[in-house]
């Protein structure tokens, strides 16, 4: 059982997730570096949030790698943080546009990137739920027991 688990996780949808995360590390990282070093004063909040987004994608990439190797705890936390970030920044960019004279990576729910930033954590969480349904059921059971 223990011997087959790593083989099972070697290939799978997480490979595509890792690729997209790597692309976003590159895209968000390069964008935030250019924004911070060339025009930070123009939109400090938006550009700082771009740095946060880039850091989140780096952490997300490592989290998915760890989850594919069997340790899903960090990935669960990171993906929820990422989803919360996209939603909060998306709502703020629409509600308080004066804070965002220029777009950050997560502005308008990632519309500048075809809404992939909003889809990515959702797909990641769906993948986690699919590869670890037992764990999710067990935690649901224990919650029910506690209630």
């Amino acid at each position, binding site marked *: 059982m223990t011997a087959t688990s790593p083989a099972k996780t070697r290939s799978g949808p997480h*490979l595509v997730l890792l690729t997209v995360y790597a692309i976003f590390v590159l895209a968000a990282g390069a964008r935030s570096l250019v924004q911070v070093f060339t025009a930070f004063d123009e939109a400090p909040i938006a550009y700082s949030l771009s740095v946060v987004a880039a850091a989140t994608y780096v952490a997300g990439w490592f989290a998915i790698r760890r989850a594919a190797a069997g340790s899903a705890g960090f990935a669960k936390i990171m993906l929820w943080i990422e989803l919360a970030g996209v939603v909060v920044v998306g709502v703020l960019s629409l509600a308080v546009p004066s804070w965002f004279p220029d777009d950050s990576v997560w502005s308008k729910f990632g519309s500048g990137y075809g809404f992939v930033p909003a889809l990515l954590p959702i797909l990641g969480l769906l993948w986690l739920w699919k590869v670890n349904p037992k764990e999710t059921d067990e935690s649901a059971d224990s919650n029910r027991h506690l209630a």
Partner: protein
Amino acid sequence: MDAVTLIGFIVAGYAAFVTIAALLGVVLKAPRPKWLDQVAWMLEILAVVLAIGALAGWSAGRKPESLSTFLGYLGALVCLMPLALQTMRTDRSTWSSGVIAAAALATGVVAVRVMMVR
């Protein structure tokens, strides 16, 4: 329409074709065929041609709005597909086609961005 813009459209269109072909492999749950690698390398050659054309335009006096953004896009355009193919070198599984699809889609998007910022 100048030559570089035309090459840019060809790269974007061909990238869309590679993306669809690779996604088809995922949908059909087939192992990654050898020909997919070949069409992906063809996309890489086209991307290099576009990068050279864009660099030639820049050296001939064309001024991009942001030089760092322009050069960053060129780097990404040329590096994405070889990195994806290298990472999946020993993995011929269905999902390795998904990786090629993601890299091809990103290459197409970057090609369009290169045309916009050059």
